[in-house]
C-alpha cells in the first residue's frame, strides 16, 4: 500500500500552538503565508512587518525575519527597509484598524510612491486585539463595543473601502480582495498572495491582498456562523475579486 501525503504542516510554520481564537482567520492566513513563502523560495530574502493587533505575535509562528511596527506605521517601516535593501522582499501584515484607520496616510503615500512592497491586509471589521471596538471597516448596523447600538452612518460614517481607494492611486499595481471562510476562498487567497509577492519580485510596484477574515469572538458568533456572515454580509460591502491589475501594463 502506498501512502500519499495530502496535507502537511508548512515547513515555515513553527511548531507552536496558535494563540488565536478557534475559527479566527489569522491562523489560516499565517499558514498560507508560510506555504507561499516556502513554495516561492523566499525565506532567505523576505522580511515581514507585523503590527500591533491580534497578529502581534506572528513572529511566534512564521519562521522568517520579522520586525514589529508601531500601530499603523507598517508601510513607512517597510519603505525604509526596502529602500536600503531593494533585493529583500518586504511585506506588512496589518489589521483593518492598523491599515485603514491610524495607518491610512502611510499606506496611501507608500502606494503612491510606488514602493515595491506588499501589504497583507486582514479585514475583520473590528479591532480584535483591543476587545472588539468599531473599525473603519465595521458594517453599517454592526454592533461593537464602541457602537453598541449598531454603526450609524450619520454619526460613524460608512465602511471604508481601502482596496478601492488604493486602486485609484497610480503607484498600485495589483490589488485583490479575497476571504478565508471556505476552502475555495482559501485557495484563491493563496493564489492572490503569490501574485502580490510576484509583483514585488518583478519590481513592478505596490501590491496588496485584502483578506476578509472571520473574528468569531468579537462578532459573538460560532466559527461556522462567522464564516457564513462573511458570505452573507461582508461581501456586500466588500466584494471579492481582483480590484486592480496593472501587471501587464507595467511589464511592457
Amino acid at each position, binding site marked *: 500500500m502506498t501512502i500519499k501525503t495530502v496535507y502537511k504542516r508548512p515547513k515555515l510554520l513553527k511548531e507552536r500552538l496558535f494563540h488565536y481564537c478557534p475559527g479566527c482567520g489569522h491562523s489560516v492566513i499565517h499558514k498560507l503565508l508560510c506555504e507561499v513563502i516556502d513554495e516561492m523560495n*523566499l*525565506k*532567505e*530574502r*523576505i*522580511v515581514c*512587518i507585523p503590527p*500591533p493587533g491580534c497578529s*502581534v*505575535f506572528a*513572529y511566534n509562528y*512564521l*519562521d*522568517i*525575519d*520579522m*520586525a*514589529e*511596527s*508601531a500601530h499603523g*506605521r507598517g508601510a*513607512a*517601516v*517597510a*519603505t*525604509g*527597509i*526596502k*529602500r*536600503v*535593501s531593494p*533585493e*529583500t*522582499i518586504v511585506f506588512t501584515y496589518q489589521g483593518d484598524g492598523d491599515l485603514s484607520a491610524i495607518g491610512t*496616510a*502611510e499606506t*496611501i*503615500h507608500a502606494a503612491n*510612491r510606488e514602493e515595491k512592497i506588499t501589504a497583507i491586509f486582514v479585514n475583520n471589521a473590528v479591532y480584535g486585539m483591543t476587545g472588539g471596538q468599531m473599525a473603519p471597516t465595521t458594517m453599517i448596523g454592526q454592533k461593537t463595543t464602541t457602537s453598541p447600538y449598531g454603526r450609524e452612518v450619520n454619526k460613524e460614517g460608512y465602511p471604508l473601502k481601502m482596496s478601492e481607494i488604493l486602486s485609484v492611486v497610480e503607484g498600485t499595481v495589483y490589488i485583490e480582495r479575497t476571504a478565508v471562510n471556505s476552502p475555495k476562498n482559501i485557495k484563491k487567497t493563496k493564489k492572490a498572495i503569490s501574485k502580490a509577492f510576484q509583483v514585488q519580485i518583478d519590481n513592478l510596484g505596490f501590491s496588496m491582498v485584502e483578506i476578509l477574515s472571520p473574528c468569531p469572538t468579537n462578532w459573538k458568533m460560532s466559527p461556522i456562523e462567522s464564516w457564513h456572515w462573511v458570505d452573507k454580509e461582508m461581501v456586500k460591502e466588500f466584494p471579492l475579486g481582483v480590484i486592480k491589475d496593472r501587471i501587464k501594463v507595467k511589464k511592457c
Partner: protein
Amino acid sequence: MNKYLISGNSVIAEAAIRAGCQCYFGYPITPQNELTEYMALHLSRKEGCTFIQAESEISAINMVYGASIAGARAMTSSSSPGISLKQEGISYLAACELPAVIVNMMRGGPGLGSISASQSDYFQATRGGGHGDYRTIVLSPASGQELADLTQRAFDLADNYRTPVIILGDGMLGQMMEPVEFHKEAPENLSTKSWALKGAKDRPSKIIKTFTSNPNELEEINWRLFRKYRLIEREEVDYETYMVEDAELIVIAYGIAARIAKGAIKKARAHNLKVGMLRPITLWPFPFKKIQEISKRVQYFFVFEMNMGQMIEDVQLALEGNGEISFYGRPGGVIPTPSEVFRILSRQYYQKGLNR
C-alpha cells in the same frame, strides 16, 4: 583642509553625508528646511542612498526605523512640533536598540509657537521624550564647527551603543554661517550590522520586537537598557569650560545660549568681574560630576537658557543644595543679546558681593 561657508543646517547635512549617512527622511518645517533641501540635492542621487520627503514626521521616523532595521545609517530632522510627532518612533528605536540620528532645530513653543530660535525642548530631549523608560544621547552644538563635529560623532555613538542620538540645535544655529572644516571623511565600508534583517539566509530567522505579554521579560529588557545607559553616563559626558579657573561666578549654558553667554563673559572680564562658564556639550549624559567638582570651590552659579528654566533642574540635582543658583531665561523665541546677559550677570555679581 578646505573651509566651507554654508548655513548651519547645511553643515549638519554635509557632515552626515560624510559620516556615511545613507538614508534621510524628513518633512518640511522651519527653521530647518535647508537641511532637508541639502539632502534632496546631495544625498538623493548618491549611489546606494535614499532621500524621501515623507508624508509626515511620523512616517519619516518610521522610515528611519525601517532603514535602521536593514542596517543603514539613517537620519531625520525636524523642529519642535515635528519632534513631538516623532516621539513614538524614537521610543521604538530605543526599545529595539536600533541606531538613528534625530536632529531638532528648536523653535519657540508651546503649540505651533514661533519659528524663532529657542531651547524649549530640553526636558523632552533629555528625559527620553516619548513613552517608556528610556534615554537618548543628546548633543548640544554651539557653533558651525561643532555642528559638523557632533553630527559625525552622533552617527558613531548611535552605532556603538545601538541607540537613538538627538542633536539638539536651534533655529539660529541652523541659519548661521561660519567657516567650517569637515574633519572626517565617510568611512569606506561601514561594518555590516549584526542585527540587520534581510531574510533568513545562512542563519535562523530573527525577530526585532518589543512587545511581550511577559512583564518579567520586559523588565529584563529595561535592565539591559539601563545597564547601557549607565555605561554611556560613565563614558560619554562632554563639556567645555571657559575661564573657570579663577571664577567667582559660573555661568551654565548650552548651545546658542552659551555662545551669547560667552559674549557676556568677555564683557564681564573687561570689567574685571571673575566670571567663567561651564557649557555642557552632552545634555544627556549631563556633566553632574564636573559641576560638583566646580562647586567645591565656587559658590555662585548663573543658569542661562532660552526657555523658562529646564536645564536648571539638572544643575540643582548636581549641586544637591551646595551653592546658590540664579536663573535668567528668555522663552518664546526671543534672542537675548550678550549686553543684556552681561547686565543681568553683573547685577548678580555685585548683589552677591563678589566684587569685594
